[in-house]
């Protein structure tokens, strides 16, 4: 080949390289900008069940933490507008396997405060690390009770006052894992282990699942007393799709 050929070849390869790089960059930008969300509210229709007050006299420390505001069981927590708190929403169908296996780096925190679990329900992804801490001056034990046949193994660790955080993760999806403290039998919470993006309703019953790629999905809402409900939703690039749920009080 002569010099002219060389130059032509070099020019072609360089331009191809530049075009290729540009395409990659542009594609990436489009993906990030294209992620939408699913938002909505979860309501309870009918009269909410009466949540009994908790007798904490087993542990005078616990009683003292609630001297001015007695505490009730948290199986069903409804706002004045009928919004259901502590409902977990996740995508049960429609995500690709790459999207399902993505593990967020955030470590959601489960606290023991005033001898109650805060939050009452903690959602997380398979293999996502979560942290259990104690803010109380009385000893607790953390005892999650997964079904061992799912691949999630039960464990039981003590957390006296001032103990370091316990960081763990779960191996398999499980909706949901009950968590209890044996020392304070009224303490009852949940770990909800899912795959893909998720959200939990706040005290007004509203939620937003962020980081959802465009597509059509089945969203599942789970509440500890009322079980699951599903809805089909289509997320457009950069848009917020709406999915509302209503559970019926028994």
């Amino acid at each position, binding site marked *: 080949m002569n010099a002219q050929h060389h130059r032509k070849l070099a020019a072609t390869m360089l331009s191809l390289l530049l075009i290729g790089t540009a395409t990659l960059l542009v594609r990436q930008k489009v993906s990030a900008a294209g992620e939408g969300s699913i938002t909505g509210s979860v309501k309870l229709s009918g009269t909410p069940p009466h949540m009994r007050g908790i007798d904490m006299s*087993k*542990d005078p420390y616990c009683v003292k933490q609630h001297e001015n505001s007695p505490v009730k069981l948290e199986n069903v927590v409804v706002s004045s507008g009928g919004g259901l708190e502590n409902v977990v929403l996740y995508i049960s169908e429609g995500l690709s396997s790459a999207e399902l296996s993505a593990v967020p780096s955030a470590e959601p925190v489960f606290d023991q405060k005033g001898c109650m679990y805060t939050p009452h329900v903690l959602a997380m992804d398979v293999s996502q690390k979560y942290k259990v801490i104690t803010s109380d001056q009385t000893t607790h034990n953390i005892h999650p009770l997964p079904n061992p046949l799912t*691949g999630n193994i039960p464990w039981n*660790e003590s957390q006296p006052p001032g103990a370091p955080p316990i960081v763990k993760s779960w191996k398999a999806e499980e909706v949901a894992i009950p968590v209890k403290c044996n*020392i304070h*039998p009224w303490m009852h919470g949940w770990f909800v282990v899912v795959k893909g993006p998720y959200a939990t309703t706040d005290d007004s019953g509203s939620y937003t699942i962020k980081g959802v790629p465009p597509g059509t999905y089945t969203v599942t809402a789970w509440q500890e007393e009322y079980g699951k409900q599903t809805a089909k939703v289509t997320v457009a690039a950069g848009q917020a799709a709406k999915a509302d749920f209503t559970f019926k009080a028994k």
Partner: protein
Amino acid sequence: MNANLIRWLRVLSVLGFFAVPTLVWAQITQYQQEEWLHTPAVTSHIGNITGNANSERVKYDYRRYCVGCHGDLGDGNGENAIWFQPPEFPKPRDFELAVFKCRSTPTGTLPTDEDLFDTIARGLDRSNMPPWNTFTKQQRADLVAWIKHYSPRWQTEKAGTPIQIPTEPEITPERVKAGQDVYARVQCWKCHGVTGEANGPSASTLTNDLNQPILPYNFGSGSRPICGSTDRDIYRIFMTGLDGTPMPSFADNIKPDEAWDLVFFLRTLQPHNEFNKREKEIAKQLNLKPLNAMKLSQ
């Protein structure tokens, strides 16, 4: 019809005559036989003994001695199980879940083969699991392999790593007193009570993983601790937890040296036995009084 065809028909009818009852027999015994014929090649290793779930003898032993409580499927639903009423008589272990109380391994992990081997021989005090000292070591090792074949966990998970137990130090009055401080700090008394007699404020509402009532160990009762009566056995109980029960692992909250102090203090809560002579002497010497529950609760 030609001769060939008739011959074939005869052959087929003879075969059919034997095939039909064979198939019927196979269906009836399929449930019973499947478990027993298709045992995966599960083995156990204890010292230089290898146990085998495929040995002919182990099936006989399990049927003869274990199936009555633990059941054909190893799920704890043997014929006798309905007569066990918790908390006085805990239900038989469900081997399918592979969650065991007496381990040398951390909470949430599988026990070692040796842990299971020892439990069979030792039995579990205050339960209907007797010490099975009728077996040879080989039989026991085979039974461990058989127990393991009931849960798929043994195929995908490795047993936990046994915890490190430092050498037992000399029993001194300082250590016994320090042990009482540990008992107060991590609040063992909440369930076990200040005198260790299982009468702490949370004792009456304890439930196990299956939501059945369960009692904490009563140090004053004179019965053996559930996973063995030596100091090391007691050390392991609170440093690995009794999985499946309310008893948690304190491994992250009690340092190994403090753990020995706690063992010595716990010995003072037991009535006089062959293991706690020195601790009881020290308790008398110190005039050791139970913790003040009212003060602790503030």
